[in-house]
């Protein structure tokens, strides 16, 4: 009893510390990323403003470099400890130790708490420039944020709740306080991470603004006016646009549906430019999930331990084993079903991104759904799909008839059952291609005609599916005890009456299974269309899955494709629900 309580306390403490550690690590990562980015901008600044030693030299004028390096640290608002090495010699703090020559050759990203970025020499006419002539080192600005304070408080609260929960008797009560504390801890940790992310973007914007403003005054002449192209390298690819005026504090602006971090830099008298970049905190939502998840491991572990403490060893072992067996399937389901579904949900309410891999997508609400529902091609394909799905009851009737005939012992029945099953076992594409050549032999091209293409697919699908459905029906028939049929015979029922009044009702769960899976399968049919008709001729076989594929992979409209897939999901849900309602008018039959 005590052992369990101690264990529970340990679990709770470890989980709380884990949340804290993850948050701290992520914070540090943002600080380092920010420092590295500032260092790159700083290097770009020096490369832009420092004149060359001589006209054809690939080295900077050292006096200029020294003056500008010193000037950088005195800029009002510059809060990042910076060191510029010319070769291995420090310029800002001459008393500092020089850089080891070996490190200049193979520059590490990080050294002594500072991000290191190579400083490349000026371009000369020979084109052999851009040699590394020095190093820019930037340390993150040390500051204790509000988030850290919050985090400490929440941690304390969580520890208190854990202590209270564990100290109290180890009983079967839901520890609501602990769950609340854990959630609070996770939330606080996330706030901290988000704050760090926001801070890293803001730091870089601020530094870049200062660097650009400084550069605007120091660019080597002769220049009439500064143009954006002159300072653009300092922005490291961020958007630069002329603006009327602006605040010099970083702010968040929604531009065409996308959140951007913006700061205004003054590039001359009355000339302002906005520096726009993706705000780092926009990508932290995964950390909300992760941190809340980690935090909730505590309460879950607590509940699990409570359960384990109450449960005797044998069922405990059995349950653990059962979960062990379920885990791979569960993981597979989570990664390949639930995950993509959630992603589709996300995609369906967001617009297209600039690049395929660019994660920032503007939120567009139900725009994708509106577009999909307003598309006549979508409606046409839904109609085609529904028409195509009508093959399911036809093939089911055939399959049931075959099953009734072949549900008997003996080698002949076995061989025939295998023969019917063969098309289903073969590759759909292979079967389809075989039929394609077969169908084009005759006097008319069945797949090539707009009137007959869908019909040909329906016939082909029946041919493929009958064997499978027959096998399921045979399995169902063999599960029906003979006694019911014998009772019916004695009761005076003929063969037809026995089928309608006994066999068919007892087969209902199987029939329902075949129907539901068949209709779902029909709605998801893609391979045949893709292999045989490509949706043609003239959209005659453009079923919903092909429309989806077309939208997603041909037009690269993932938002719309996701919206369409969700619509298909809703349609299938409705169809399935209706089938259950219609067919399961009575409760499931149990064999008495």
């Amino acid at each position, binding site marked *: 009893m005590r052992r369990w309580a101690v264990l529970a306390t340990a679990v709770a403490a470890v989980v709380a510390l884990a949340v804290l550690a993850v948050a701290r690590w992520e914070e540090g990562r943002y600080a380092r990323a920010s420092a590295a980015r500032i260092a790159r901008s700083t290097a770009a600044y020096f490369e832009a403003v420092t004149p060359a030693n001589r006209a054809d030299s690939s080295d900077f004028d050292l006096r200029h470099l020294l003056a500008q390096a010193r000037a950088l640290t005195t800029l009002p608002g510059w809060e990042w400890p910076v060191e510029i090495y010319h070769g291995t010699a420090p310029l800002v703090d001459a008393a500092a130790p020089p850089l080891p020559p070996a490190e200049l050759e193979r520059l590490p990203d990080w050294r002594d708490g500072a991000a290191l970025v190579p400083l490349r020499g000026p371009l000369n006419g020979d084109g052999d420039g851009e040699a590394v002539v020095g190093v820019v080192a930037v340390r993150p600005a040390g500051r204790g944020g509000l988030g850290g304070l919050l985090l400490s408080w929440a941690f304390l609260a969580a520890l208190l709740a854990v202590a209270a929960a564990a100290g109290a008797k180890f009983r079967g009560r839901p520890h609501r306080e602990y769950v609340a504390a854990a959630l609070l801890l996770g939330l606080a940790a996330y706030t901290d991470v988000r704050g760090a992310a926001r801070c890293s973007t803001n730091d870089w914007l601020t530094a870049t603004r200062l660097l650009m403003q400084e550069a605007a005054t120091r660019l080597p002449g002769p220049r009439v006016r500064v143009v954006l192209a002159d300072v653009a390298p300092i922005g490291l690819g961020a958007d630069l646009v002329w603006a009327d005026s602006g605040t010099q504090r970083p702010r968040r602006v929604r531009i065409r549906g996308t959140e951007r971090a913006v700061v205004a830099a003054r590039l001359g008298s009355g000339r302002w430019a906005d520096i726009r970049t993706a705000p780092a905190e926009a990508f932290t939502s995964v950390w909300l999930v992760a941190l809340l998840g980690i935090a909730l491991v505590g309460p879950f572990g607590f509940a699990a331990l409570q359960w384990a403490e109450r449960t005797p060893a044998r069922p405990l072992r059995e349950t653990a084993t059962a979960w062990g067996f379920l885990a791979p399937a569960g993981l597979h389901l989570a990664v390949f079903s639930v995950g993509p579904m959630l992603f589709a949900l996300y995609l369906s309410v967001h617009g297209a991104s600039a690049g395929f891999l660019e994660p920032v997508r503007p939120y567009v609400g139900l725009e994708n759904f509106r577009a999909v529902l307003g598309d006549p091609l979508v409606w046409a394909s839904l109609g085609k799909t529904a028409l195509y799905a009508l093959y399911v009851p036809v093939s089911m009737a055939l399959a049931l008839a075959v099953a009734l005939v072949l549900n008997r012992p003996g080698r002949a029945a076995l061989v025939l059952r295998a023969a019917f099953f063969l098309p289903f076992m073969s590759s759909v594409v292979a079967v389809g291609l075989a039929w394609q050549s077969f169908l084009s032999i005759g006097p008319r091209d069945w797949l090539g005609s707009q009137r007959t293409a869908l019909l040909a697919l329906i016939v082909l699908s029946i041919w493929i599916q009958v064997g499978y459905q027959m096998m399921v029906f045979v399995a169902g028939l063999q599960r029906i005890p003979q006694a019911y049929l014998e009772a019916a*015979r*004695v009761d*005076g029922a003929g063969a037809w009456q026995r089928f309608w009044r006994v066999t068919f*009702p*007892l087969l209902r769960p199987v029939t329902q299974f075949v129907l539901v899976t068949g209709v779902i399968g029909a709605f998801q049919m893609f391979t045949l269309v893709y292999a045989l008709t490509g949706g043609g001729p003239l959209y005659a076989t453009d079923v919903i899955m092909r429309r989806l594929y077309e939208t997603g992979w041909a037009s690269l409209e993932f938002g719309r494709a996701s919206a369409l897939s969700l619509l298909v999901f809703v349609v299938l849900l409705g169809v399935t629900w209706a089938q259950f309602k219609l067919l399961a008018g009575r409760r499931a039959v*149990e064999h*008495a």
Partner: protein
Amino acid sequence: MASVTLRGLTLAFDGAAQAALRDLTLEVRDGELLVLLGPSGCGKTTVLRCIAGLEDPTAGDVLIGERVVTSLPPAQRDVAMVFQNYALYPHLTVSENIAFALELRGMPAAEIARRVTSAAGRLGLADLLERRPAELSGGQRQRAALARAMVREPSVFLLDEPLSNVDANLRIELRAELVALHRALRATMVYVTHDQGEAMTMGQRIAVLHEGRLLQVGTPAEVYQRPADVFVARSLGTPAMNILAGRARGTAESGDDRMFESGSLHIPIALPTYEGELQIGVRPEHVGVCAVDQGAGNGDILIVELLGNETVVHLNAGGQPLVARLPGLVDVQVGTRVGLKLDRRHLHLFDASGVRIQ
């Protein structure tokens, strides 16, 4: 109502080593409750299925009344069957189950309702009519299956171990109910069981089957008192009849009985001319104990079972095992030797192959 006659019924299943039924001839009289008794696998259920038309006999005929029905389908035989597992249609309610056969016949709905209500009322199912079989207890399912058979008013009822799936207490109760039902309906019933208690208490006549052959038919008393062979003798009564193997010795010159010897037992028997191996059957209640050397022989007591109203003693009589059933509580000690008395009026004599001699 009608009689059922089986004439030389033989049934061999494909691939089976021996026939399930061998030249079986039996008459079930009109209105009679006949019990088919035998161990599992003896063919008794097969007989029932042949009567119902669920099996086609290889040879022989089935007659219901005067009509030969051997090649008729079950539907045209006018028999009702209660299956061992009841076989109530799981997708139908109790009332739909009972009405099933009537609906198939196209009977008017009002008449069906009347019959269902009446049958259900008779078997105490009135409150359960809308339930499904899965929602019934074992005894209720059994009654529903009976009602389903009864409502058809068939010529013959076939019952296949209908009580084997209900618990012991309920079985005794239902046994009495079934007998009462039989009396009330005056129906011809063929009742299959492997339980000798059911056979003795319920059957007007008992037919004992063994390996597809009919061994004996008779009233319970006849079959108990004059078993036709050793198998029948041991099938009825608990503990089972003692069978002593041995040989008759001596001659009957002086009109005296000859002496039968088995183990330590010497039993005088009135069989003047019989020579060869002999088996004597004696029921445990006809074995008594007395002082050593005062009876037909001596036996060592192996086991004593005190049952209260009687005491069952297992003995070893010079290598011949013997069971005695003594009334009341008898004070005998395991390991002691006692004399044994056999009631001469209740000895059953069988030849070496087990067939009754007298």
